[in-house]
């Protein structure tokens, strides 16, 4: 059991973690990144569609700027986000794109001249200007006013991750792969690093650091059906939770995507439906027009996911060994269109299902699946936990609170690098102002505590010829996943959530008494999974209890028994913590003050109208903001913004962003 020292310890080697690591390493601090897998295999690579940043290079992006991006993000969040954070983010996003360009991302570029595109199922011609030729292109995405999503073909996350990982290698960041942080080392309210298990040889060590940064991604794999990579088990957030000091926020805010492939869960792009593809049920019947006569398959993501689930519940799903599903039919678009515009969808179907969706009458099995975790480790705008000093978090693992209760497409991969840039600067500042503390006894105690925990599990070894039925960790994991899918999914009700809470508590108890096949400390996936599933169960309980208590519907959190967004009572962040020895989390709330908002709560512009219980302050704040604008006709948009809602930002990112044709306006 060795002890290592570093200035910054970054847990998680995806885009967010690597970008923070680059910031601290460049500032001269010894930086160590731990990753479960080779960093270039992180789930960041799966971001396909693109990254939002208001470059406004394309003719379809003209007029875009930080203000428009900010408004889209706040509306998308259903007013659940931290608006100051949304401002920080939209200001830095264009800088992030340009930095990534310097690091080698081969963004798809604009070609000058006319081209045919499909907008609202209609063929339309757009003409790109000469001055934009060769600049970074952008495409249309849901919930955005402008074409703002910058992309590298359909492998945006991959090209970003390789560029950032190579930049980290170039800067000699210490990257240690196949390492799992299993416990945070802390005393009172200060974090000193983490206990780390080597997944290759099972050895335990401690990493002591001034600043510890958790960037381990989301918790999608708590659900039975998720588009997430298999490593997205939320164990980073659970590390923080298990301290009993650090807290999580908005865990019940979980996004579902309508069309994920069954059984693999690989995402089928929204473009399938955008181009005219339709959804069918077990009878081959097109059911969406019955539910949504106007928008049909092209209603917003949360609406389509809700309708599909409703239809499956009515018994109209297609039974399969992997559960009921529905059909996505793109064959009606014709082979020529598919092979030109939906090539990847076709390739995935051929590779994974052995079917060609361009063949007439061949349909793709799809079902809504968990897609994104808006909740995570509660941090302030600097990325630091307000409860456990020295602990930072960014990316999907954190609730920095950029996304509130619903995230916009293209804002997640953007958040990874942008929050990495911003929080990286704050981590540097923290390292400059703090000394590395060497409490080797503390480190040893935590390592021993973990080792004892392992020994207790390994003591319950059970030979291969004995059956262990419900005392098997994989059965417990699968039961948890099914509970989350069935009872804490897209639609939620009091009764089901209460059942889920009780059942999950039972599973948590059961998980203490599981049997294991091998008593080895290495080469033993059963041991690793036993440790992880216990963590996942705690997160599942946080999600469930938060969802049970939140008696309103906001963004992705949909309560059938409370269908309205209730600004009067629920404009608040859910804060969850876990005291050792308890069988469920403690839930508290943090108010979101309307009077500090730049954009007062209102109608999102999509979804059901008249579905809001308004807060009296909303109208008051709206008026106040209007007044400020009216009283200052000679001020520019930056000055006005500053008067309405000043926001913090590291100095190096405060400068204005240049745009083609208009300069720094």
């Amino acid at each position: 059991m060795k002890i290592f020292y570093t200035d910054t310890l970054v847990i998680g080697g995806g885009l967010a973690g690597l970008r923070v690591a680059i910031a601290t390493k460049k500032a001269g601090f010894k930086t160590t990144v731990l990753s479960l897998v080779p960093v270039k295999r992180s789930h960041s690579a799966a971001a396909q569609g693109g990254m939002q940043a208001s470059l406004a290079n394309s003719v379809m992006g003209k007029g875009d700027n930080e203000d428009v991006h900010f408004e889209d993000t706040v509306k998308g969040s259903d007013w659940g986000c931290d608006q100051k954070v949304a401002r920080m983010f939209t200001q830095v996003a264009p800088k992030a794109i340009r930095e990534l360009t310097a690091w080698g991302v081969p963004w798809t570029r604009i070609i000058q001249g006319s081209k045919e595109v499909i907008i609202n199922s209609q063929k339309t011609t757009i003409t790109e200007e000469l001055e934009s030729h060769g600049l970074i292109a952008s495409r249309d995405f849901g919930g955005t006013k402008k074409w703002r999503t910058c992309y590298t073909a359909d492998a945006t996350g991959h090209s970003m991750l390789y560029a950032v990982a190579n930049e980290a290698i170039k800067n000699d960041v210490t990257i240690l792969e196949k390492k799992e942080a299993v416990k945070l080392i802390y005393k009172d309210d200060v974090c000193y690093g983490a206990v780390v298990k080597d997944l290759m040889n099972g050895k335990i060590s401690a990493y002591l650091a001034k600043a510890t940064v958790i960037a381990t991604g989301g918790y999608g794999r708590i659900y039975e059906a998720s588009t997430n990579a298999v490593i997205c088990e939320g164990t980073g957030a659970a590390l923080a939770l298990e301290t009993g000091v650090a807290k999580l926020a908005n865990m019940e805010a979980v996004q579902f995507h309508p069309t994920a492939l069954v059984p693999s869960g690989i995402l089928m792009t929204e473009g399938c439906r955008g181009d005219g593809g339709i959804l069918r049920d077990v009878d081959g019947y097109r059911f969406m027009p019955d539910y949504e006569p106007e928008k049909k398959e092209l209603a917003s993501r949360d609406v389509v996911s809700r309708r599909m689930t409703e239809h499956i519940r009515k018994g109209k799903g297609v039974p399969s060994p992997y559960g009921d599903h529905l059909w996505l039919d793109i064959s009606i678009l014709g082979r020529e269109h598919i092979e030109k515009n939906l090539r990847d969808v076709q390739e995935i179907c051929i590779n994974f299902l052995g079917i060609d969706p361009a063949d007439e009458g061949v349909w793709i099995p799809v079902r809504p699946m968990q897609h994104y975790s808006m909740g995570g480790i509660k941090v302030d705008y600097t990325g630091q936990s307000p409860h456990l000093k020295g602990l930072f978090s960014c990316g999907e693992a954190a609730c920095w609170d950029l996304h509130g209760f619903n995230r916009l497409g293209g804002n997640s991969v953007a958040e990874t690098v942008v929050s990495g840039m911003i929080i990286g600067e704050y981590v540097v500042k923290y390292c400059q102002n703090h000394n590395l503390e060497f409490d080797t006894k503390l480190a040893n105690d935590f390592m021993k505590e973990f080792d004892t925990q392992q020994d207790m599990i390994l003591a319950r070894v059970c030979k291969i010829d004995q059956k262990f039925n419900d005392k098997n960790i994989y059965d417990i994991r699968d039961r948890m996943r099914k509970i989350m899918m069935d009872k804490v999914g897209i639609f939620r009700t009091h009764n089901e959530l209460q059942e889920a809470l009780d059942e999950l508590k039972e599973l948590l108890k059961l998980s203490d008494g599981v049997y294991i096949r091998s008593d080895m400390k290495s080469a033993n996936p059963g041991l690793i999974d036993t440790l992880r599933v216990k963590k996942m169960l705690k997160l599942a309980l946080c999600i469930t209890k938060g969802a049970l208590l939140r008696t309103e519907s906001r963004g992705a959190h949909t309560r059938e028994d409370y269908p309205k967004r209730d600004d009067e009572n629920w404009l608040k962040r859910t804060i969850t913590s876990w005291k050792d020895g308890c069988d469920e989390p403690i839930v508290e709330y943090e108010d979101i003050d309307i009077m500090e908002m730049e954009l007062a709560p209102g109608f999102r512009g999509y979804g059901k109208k008249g579905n809001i219980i308004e807060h009296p302050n909303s109208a008051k704040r709206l008026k106040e903001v209007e007044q400020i604008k009216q009283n200052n006709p000679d001020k520019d948009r930056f000055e006005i913004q500053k008067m309405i809602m000043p926001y913090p930002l590291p100095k190096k990112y405060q400068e204005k962003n240049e745009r083609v044709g208009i300069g720094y306006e």
Partner: protein
Amino acid sequence: MSRMLTFNIFKYNPLDKNDKPKLQTYEIEETPGMTMFVALNYIRDRLDHTLQFDFVCRAGICGSCAMVINGVPTLACKTLTSSYKDGNITLLPLPVFELIGDLSIDTANWMKDMSKDIQSWIHTNEQTDINKLEKPMDPKVADDVFELDRCIECGCCVSACGTKRMRPNFKGAVALNRVARYEADPRDQRTDEELFEIIGDDNGVFGCMSLLGCDDTCPKHLPLQTKIAYLRRKMVKEGLK
């Protein structure tokens, strides 16, 4: 009832001094659309909790799950069990890379060393002001760079390489493709002379015997044959200077 599949899977824990490499047999029932990802997880969850293998994205984009399936290195996640007509499937770990256990190998350190060796990043003296408009890039050139940037470092090309078996220090197609990627990128200011220093020897582009196992097995269908030939012509020219 669908057919039964017989899996013969390499089992060996190099850390256990008493263990010997062996093929372990598992029988499972095939389900529609079953991939190696589904099958291996079924085996681990239901039949053998100790079986080691690696998956991350399970969508053919991260490169974690390369293994030798019935003699051919490929990505397990996007391989369907139905493509093996007799239902007999033998799984071995990729050769060349260090074995962690069973089907799990350590590509991380190999690939990191490779990246350092060829300095897999943009080399430039230009300073970028991130507040300013980015420099325009020819859209066609950007597409060409992206085509080579698609490599996922899965290791199939390296383990299918005859030269690599003979020359332990041979850089392999993954490295040569990376060099070609930066050579095609106008943002990288490295000259041919500088590239010659990196790949202009028998461990680089001149070691390749053109057996092209790399090109045959690349799951991303990268133009490895063309690019290695292109680099070799370029480097010959440079060497003759």
